[in-house]
């Protein structure tokens, strides 16, 4: 873990708060005064990881900036469930323009603030994986390359959920979606496609890139806070399970995020100026099967005609991440 360990043997750094901690050491989410940037009454599905992730990120950013924050949001579930006229769930200045232009809009906001001498106000851009890794990718890359003073956050639920769960460039192989069903001998989504935007972001050598999940709140908050200490383009890729799109129990959202990291399928790391500086080590390693089984999108791998070959390929992906990022604790490798 990249942040200061709190030596509290009962629950350590893993829970949100704990009455035994110095208030300063508690997470933003543990505070009664948290900003609830995304407040109640939104229309996200039960147990939506994206709703959770967005509040985590923005509350942390609100705290880091003393409330001087503006958010820009691309089209997607997050936007749709939060702002159906006449009700908004946002409690900070927020602008939605289009599906593919979030990064550019955010860059424009940042430019305007700079021109007005209001650089004390910071800008967060946010989008789903579709809005980030696919349709918004061009504007994202431009924003990175120009080093605009924006923290861009991708809430990765591995598909186009808002339009009814289609594949995106972040959908993992073998997942079934509305347009990658396991038909005609295919394993669901095919292998060998998709992209890692965190790595691509690093290739832009922007000041800060990090990945996180909704399962590790403190790590996530730490990264938001850290991101806010930099000026220039920053990128945070947050893994947010989608109960609806993944066919998972609503209560499993955090668990699945945890398993994605613990299997090695989703590497959690930080990079500065293009170089990885920290990785979150796997704490209790589990085989990918533990992660796949509770999700209906992978059910075909364990059905009447099980596909151990496909599961093995997914395990190989996890193993590759583990080797590549050094995800196992020292001595375990």
């Amino acid at each position, binding site marked *: 873990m990249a942040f200061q360990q709190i030596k509290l043997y009962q629950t350590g750094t893993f829970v949100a708060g704990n009455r035994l901690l110095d208030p300063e050491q508690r997470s933003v989410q543990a505070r009664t005064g948290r900003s609830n940037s995304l407040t109640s009454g939104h229309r996200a599905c039960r147990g939506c990881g994206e709703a959770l992730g967005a509040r985590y990120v923005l509350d942390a950013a609100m705290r880091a900036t003393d409330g001087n924050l503006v958010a*820009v949001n691309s089209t997607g579930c997050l936007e749709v469930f939060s702002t159906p*006229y006449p009700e908004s769930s946002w409690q*900070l200045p927020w602008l939605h323009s289009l599906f593919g232009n979030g990064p550019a809009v955010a860059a*424009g906001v940042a430019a305007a603030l700079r021109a007005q001498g209001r650089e004390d106000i910071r800008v967060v851009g946010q989008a789903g994986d579709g809005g980030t890794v696919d349709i918004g990718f061009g504007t994202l890359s431009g924003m990175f390359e120009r080093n605009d003073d924006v923290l861009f956050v991708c809430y990765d639920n591995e598909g186009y959920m808002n339009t009814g769960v289609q594949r995106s460039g972040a959908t993992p192989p073998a997942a079934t979606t509305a347009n990658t069903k396991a038909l005609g001998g295919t394993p669901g989504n095919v292998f060998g496609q998709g992209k890692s935007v965190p790595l691509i972001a690093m290739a832009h050598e922007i000041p800060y890139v990090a990945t996180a999940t909704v399962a590790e709140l403190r790590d996530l908050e730490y990264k938001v806070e850290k991101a806010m200490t930099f000026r220039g383009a920053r990128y945070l890729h947050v893994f947010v399970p989608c109960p609806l799109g993944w066919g998972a129990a609503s209560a499993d959202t955090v668990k699945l995020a945890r398993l994605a990291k613990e299997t090695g399928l989703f590497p959690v790391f930080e990079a500065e100026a293009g170089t990885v500086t920290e990785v979150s080590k796997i704490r209790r390693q589990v085989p990918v099967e533990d992660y796949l089984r509770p999700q209906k999108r992978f059910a075909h791998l364990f059905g009447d005609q099980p596909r151990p070959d496909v599961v093995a390929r997914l395990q190989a992906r996890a193993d590759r991440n583990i080797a590549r990022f050094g995800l196992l604790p020292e001595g375990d490798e």
Partner: protein
Amino acid sequence: MLRQVEGSQAVARAVTLCRPQVIAAYPISPQTHIVESLSDRVRTGELTSCEYLMVESEFGAMSACIGASGAGARTYTATSSQGLLFMAEALFNASGLGLPIVMTVANRAIGAPINIWNDHSDAMSMRDSGWIQLFAESNQEAVDLHVQAYRLAESLSVPVMVCMDGFVLTHAFEEVDLPSQEQVDAFVPPLVPQQLLDPADPVTIGAMVGPEAFAEVKYLMHVKQMAALDEIPVIAEDFLRAFGRASGGLLKPYRVEDAETVVVALGSVLGTVEEVVDAMRDDGLSVGALGITCFRPWPVAEVREALGRAKRVVVVEKAFAVGAGGIVGQNVRDATRNLPVDVYDVVAGLGGRPITRASLRRLLDDVVAARVDASRLHFLDLDVELVQRELERARHGARPGPHAENMLRDIGTVASGAYE
């Protein structure tokens, strides 16, 4: 101050005088000289407190303007042709959100085939995007329209597109009277945004609106455009007072009062049209011209009023709706509904083809002599032989149906007529 200056430089100077705070632009001919010049002006400090974003695309440019405008900054961009289309989605968004962005469109044809030269296909393709569209006849007017555009955009909270013919104007060196900073400052007050991303007073901008209110939102957009029809003449009058020069407004009537035949046109071709009008008047023919400065919103009543006494209206336009016909022509027909007037749709100057005085004169002579069928779409200076050859060749393949046969008959007419 009168200066012999390239149109693009003049516009860049005019924009500079309007003090935009964020410029986001992506190069495309023939807009390039404008944005290059602005980049220079920001770098030299001629334009201060301005952020110039070198975006990765026109989509990014318009999007950055949306963001910047949402954050309360005066914004500017410029594009042409493909670039405008690449912005299309964002254009509708900017107008839907009511953001007072000003954009120059250096008008250019749209590919394929790719073509960098002037016509109005780009602007016409975005005529329903909710932007106000103003067409400059000259570089002087281009300068003046930009100053007026900021005032208009910000007073109504709508985006404004200033169209100027690519190359014909942007690259032309003409004498232009460039206003002083004081004059412009006095004419364009500081921006007071209608809505703003402000942590001190947070709002949610860009909500999702369902069937229960969407039509009302759109209706209100329409009302705002209608209000522009009143606002534009007021601004033009103010401008005249402040700068001593008539510029802008909705329409430019030229010798129409008693004209039996009126040519309707937009942009730089108006100069040529006026010359032909003068020549025909000299020959005793009752001809006039009506320039459309404001195409969107469409000043339907004003156009009707201007054309009310004409017998023949010849719409010469640099774009058309493929498979349908004239675009401006349709609007003119709408404005003259139930009047005893024939409206002729003439497509001219596509992809940079010059519209010469001679061609125009021939066209008008034919119209006056009733040699032209008002119910058909006409193409000025079409290379009929070439087209026929091609059609012949194509005929070896599938048989064209009756609609295409009609077109072929048109070609026959044209071919037998006077103006190839």
